[in-house]
């Protein structure tokens, strides 16, 4: 029988992994929607409205999944990690509270107007509602990442009788790893949404959709991906340096470095063996790890053996990191090919469309892999140096947790299948929709911009 700590960890990982899939799309997708809406407001060209309409439906579905899986998260702290709230509740509580108050209500309320209110409010107010939802989703990321970063690199507090008390809220929120993690995560969301839009638009074109809307959406996504990928590589590198400074044991696990060494190699591949504390089948580039981390080919990198008993499990962190970076490289390549095809060759061959469809959920894989690196990399701590994961776990019977875990897993598998099937069904359906719908003719007339707008 598995013990309750492990079960709780699996359950929390399952819940948060399932949850993060949806916000990581919606945070950035909403900014894309705002872009489409503003383009429509400025040009009056109905193609932008068609793009908006299609993606707002996708947004609604994705957002709903994010909301309901997020409600589950808010209960998990109390049900499975009572020690967490008892020890650091004074810090975590207010940050979560601000997330609910400033972000959740904002996005939830204006979502109603954004989805159902287009004909009930003036256009500018509808665009403003879209902006409010985008601000809401981003604020939500701000608060939750402030808390998550505080758990990685806690600051601005003192411990009194085993309970954390905040002394400086500014230091709590803007703790050392927060700015890096925040931008790294936002960019991850931008990339996830870009490849998501790219993939589904490519699918529509692949299925014979000759309309302008999917082409423009695809072009927008390719350009966004090309701008975001290099930025992400840069920010990711800075984030890595920040981790190297504050959590060297995590970096040692990411790089698979056992002994502290000067001029550490960068491993392209290896199989870390924690029992023998060594790697097998290494493929390495000499001195590159030192060069990246210390900007000196002979710089010193601390190895895992300096942290015996206090470093994370090596394999998941090591491989998670490689999956994330590998996926990032694939994304960069796809974006480059896409741009070259669009602007130099000016064609979209079937092979590229197929590649884009295959990459639809590449952002999910990279985000989850990165998330596992940072979260598993924090172990054995729940809050670095303050609270260990084992001390925070619930006392309730393991059988109850096993039962709830089974229920959640079943529901999530079912929902994930339904979600992906529905996405592609929506794409196929939109292939059959006519170029201009009757009500668009009316708006066109009233806007007097009909000339040449039906392309």
């Amino acid at each position, binding site marked *: 029988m598995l013990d309750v700590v492990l079960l709780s960890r699996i359950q929390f990982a399952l819940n948060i992994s399932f949850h993060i899939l949806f916000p990581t799309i919606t945070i950035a997708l909403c900014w894309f929607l705002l872009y489409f809406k503003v383009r429509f407001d400025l040009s009056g060209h109905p193609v932008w409205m068609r793009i908006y*309409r299609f993606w707002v*439906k996708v947004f*609604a*579905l994705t*957002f*709903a*999944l994010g*909301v*309901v899986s*997020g*409600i*589950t998260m*808010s*209960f998990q*702290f*109390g*049900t499975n990690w*009572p020690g967490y*709230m*008892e020890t650091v*509740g*004074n810090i975590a*509580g*207010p940050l*979560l*509270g*601000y997330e*609910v*108050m*400033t972000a*959740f*209500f*904002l996005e*939830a*309320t*204006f979502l*109603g*107007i954004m*989805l*159902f*209110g*287009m*004909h*009930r*409010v003036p256009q500018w107010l509808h665009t403003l509602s879209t902006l409010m939802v985008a601000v809401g989703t981003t604020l939500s990321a701000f608060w939750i990442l402030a808390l998550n970063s505080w758990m990685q690199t806690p600051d601005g507090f003192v411990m009194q009788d085993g*309970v954390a008390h*905040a002394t400086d*809220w500014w230091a709590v929120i803007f703790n050392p790893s927060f700015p890096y993690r925040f931008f790294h995560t936002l960019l991850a969301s931008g990339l996830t949404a870009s490849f998501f839009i790219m993939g589904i638009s490519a699918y529509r074109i692949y299925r014979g959709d000759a309309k302008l809307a999917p082409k423009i959406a695809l072009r927008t996504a390719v350009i966004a991906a090309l701008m975001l990928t290099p930025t992400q590589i840069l920010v990711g590198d800075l984030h890595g340096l920040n981790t190297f400074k504050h959590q060297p044991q995590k970096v040692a696990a990411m790089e698979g470095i056992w002994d502290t060494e000067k001029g550490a190699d960068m491993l392209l591949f290896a199989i870390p063996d924690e029992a023998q504390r060594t790697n097998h089948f290494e493929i390495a580039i000499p001195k590159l790890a030192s060069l990246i981390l210390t900007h000196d080919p002979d710089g010193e990198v601390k190895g895992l053996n300096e942290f015996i008993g206090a470093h994370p499990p090596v394999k998941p962190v090591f491989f998670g990191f490689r999956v994330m970076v590998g996926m990032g490289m694939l994304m960069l390549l796809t974006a480059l090919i896409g741009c070259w095809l669009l602007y130099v060759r000016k064609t979209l061959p079937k092979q590229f469309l197929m590649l884009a469809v295959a990459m639809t959920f590449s952002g999910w894989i990279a985000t989850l892999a990165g998330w596992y690196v940072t979260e598993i990399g924090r172990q054995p701590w729940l809050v670095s140096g303050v609270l260990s994961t084992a001390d925070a776990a*619930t006392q309730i019977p393991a059988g*109850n947790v096993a*039962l*709830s875990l089974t*229920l*959640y897993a079943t*529901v999530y598998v079912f*929902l994930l299948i*339904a979600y992906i099937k*529905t996405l592609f*069904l*929506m794409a196929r359906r939109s292939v059959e929709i006519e170029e201009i719908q009757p009500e668009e003719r009316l708006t066109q007339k009233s806007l007097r911009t009909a000339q040449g707008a039906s392309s």
Partner: protein
Amino acid sequence: MIPDNLLPDIFAALMALAILMYAILDGYDLGVGMLLPKDNVHQRDVMIASIGPFWDANETWLVLAVGLLLIAFPQAHSLILGELYLPIVVMLIGLILRGVAFDFRAKVRQGRKERWDLIFKIGSFLAAGTQGFMLGLYVMGFEHSPVSYLFALLSATGVIAAYLLIAACWLIMRTEEDLQIKALGWARKSLYFCMAGILAVCLVNPLVNDSIFYKWFAAESVWMLVIVPSLALLTLLLIWRALGDVRVLQDKYCLQPFALVVVLFLSCFVGLAFSFYPYVVPGEMTIQATASAPESLRFILVGAIIVMPCILAYTVFSYRVFRGKVTELRYY
């Protein structure tokens, strides 16, 4: 400046507000989910369209309530959520299924819609039922005995009835013709169950719990004993009268039942809150004893004072945008 010893009470009041808002707002939309008729897809569409723009914000009050419990009373939060572990899981799964069914039903293949509507209905029942069940266990001080579970089941029925009532009144207000008439029928039926439920809780609560009995029948709280039950009773009578008259379907009066049910919810809630104050976990933990550190409460209170009026303002704004009868089924 607010003295430290007032902070726990302020947060208890904020939490009470969030729970009450949740019961009213998600109450009507869970109720609408439970009322979905099997045989009429058009009516189902209208009913779901009536809650479309609101359900998400409604559920956020639950997150706020749990959030406030967690922020202000972390130990109580751990204890309550630990005691209610399994019902909470069931409730969450109910809420998950319901929330996604709402979107899936409009987007899936023809013929699959029925299935998602059924999921929507089941999810609503699960969420409402478990909420009532948990309320019952809470009232019984998380006692694990057959009597306690029996009472929890009774409470589940009561909460389901209350949500059905407020949902039916919502539909009387928001819909027309056949559906409105049907809603009147639902409202009348659920009112009986509601009355029975309220009566049962009023009798059982002081009988099983000595401290609550003494609280209500103590000399200094005579005025509460007079006001709260008579307000509830008066509201019930007014609802009864309003629903008995078909004129309630006219535009001029159709808002009445919903407004009255809100008052009924309020009086029941005040009654319950008074019974347990100053305990946050009945008989075990007081508000004062479990409150978080004052510096944390102060930090969040500043935000709450600024943000809460904004939330209320744009909630009202959103209800104004979507006021009137639900006619349009266009989603986007």
